[in-house]
């Protein structure tokens, strides 16, 4: 599993697609927002938590369709399915690799982009923490969507239609925690609920994703 993790992270970095592209996309989304809503600092500070979370979510979505697709096409997914490692573990590993190449870098640059949007300094810590806690759930749910659509030729659009509604609870609690922090309130409750969703997702969804992969490999 560690070998698989290394291989996937390596592939994502070398291919030049996933790693930088998600970050650049995140940056562009955040930069475009002030053009859309105007440069008033108060307005930007108010919408910053939501915009940053939405941007992270969309950037996550961007690289999902290649999560299993390339391995499915060249047949290495068949080998992984017959390997001694359980397929659930493979799914979890691939989701982890996806998180390392998208969720983690997004979390690291988010405070900088928060400063661009005039997010109050106290909220920067909450932003990093919520993204750190919440983005693994995005990757695992995305892996489920990718597993459902792996056999399709043009699955990308369908993938977003399937996955985005699943992101609703994560988005609500994540953005709400940051909003509370930027209003100077304590953000413990939404933070704990966000952690609950992530842990529950990581525990349950890989089974469904592996089931969907088995169906598609049949």
């Amino acid at each position, binding site marked *: 599993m560690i070998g698989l993790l290394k291989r996937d992270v390596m592939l994502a970095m070398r291919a030049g697609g996933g790693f930088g592209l998600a970050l650049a996309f995140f940056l562009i989304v955040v930069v475009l927002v002030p053009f859309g809503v105007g440069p008033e600092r108060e307005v930007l500070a108010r919408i910053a938590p939501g915009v940053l979370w939405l941007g992270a979510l969309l950037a996550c979505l961007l690289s999902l369709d290649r999560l299993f697709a390339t391995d499915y096409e060249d047949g290495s997914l068949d080998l992984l399915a017959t390997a001694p490692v359980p397929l659930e573990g493979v799914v979890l590993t691939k989701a982890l690799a996806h998180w390392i190449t998208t969720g983690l870098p997004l979390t690291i640059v988010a405070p900088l982009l928060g400063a661009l949007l005039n997010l109050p300094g106290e909220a920067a810590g909450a932003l990093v923490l919520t993204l750190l806690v919440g983005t693994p759930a995005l990757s695992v749910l995305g892996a489920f969507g990718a597993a459902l659509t792996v*056999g399709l030729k043009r*699955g990308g659009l*369908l993938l977003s239609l*399937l996955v985005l509604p699943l992101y609703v609870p994560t988005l*609500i609690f994540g953005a*709400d925690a940051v909003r509370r922090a930027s209003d100077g309130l304590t953000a413990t409750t939404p933070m704990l609920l966000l952690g609950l969703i992530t842990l529950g997702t990581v525990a349950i969804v890989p089974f*469904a994703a592996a*089931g*969907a992969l088995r169906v598609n490999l049949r």
Partner: protein
Amino acid sequence: MHLTDRVMMPLFVVAGLALVVGIGWGFFFTPDDFRQGSTVKIIYLHVPTAMMAINAWAMMLVASLVWLIRRHHVSALAAKAAAPVGVTMTLIALFTGAVWGQPMWGTWWEWDPRLTSFLILFLFYLGYIALWSAVENPDTAADLTSFMCLIGSVFAVLSRYAVLFWNQGLHQGATLSLDKDENISDVFWVPLLISMAGFVLLFIALVLLRTRSEIRLRRVQAIEMRERVA
């Protein structure tokens, strides 16, 4: 098939009758509400369709579980048949709610927990139907949509309670319940009950009809396959 052959016609007749009586009675023979005026009458469409929108998804969930556990082909087809009916019910509920909300709340749409979770349910329906139509092999499609229905149910319920956290509601509480002392007045209640029964029957009839045509479609495909091989 033999049983449904005989049941179909009476079922449609009874469903139609209950709808005509329930909605007709509700629309024309009930007094206006003292504060809401005649707009209250949209309840005879709004409440039953909203109820059926949720029940249709619950039925799809049960049918998906039956398919995954027992591999009974008809249950997968029934889940497939119920989805478009459910999405129509959701749309009617959202639309009638908007029409009622405009004069009463002064807005077509409000980001209220109930309204928002219904919109999310609508999105789940869309994804489910899109997945059915995207996968070519029928058994693969049945498996994948069943997985999607299971995970989707969990997250639909999660979203239902997450939005409560996110915004306080404008929508009133449940109009009907079995365990509360104070309910809606009988004058409105009886036609509403008939209309709800009518929508339940209509749903069953439509799902049966659509499942039967799906089964026939399957049979035709099987015959075509056999002829091509022969």
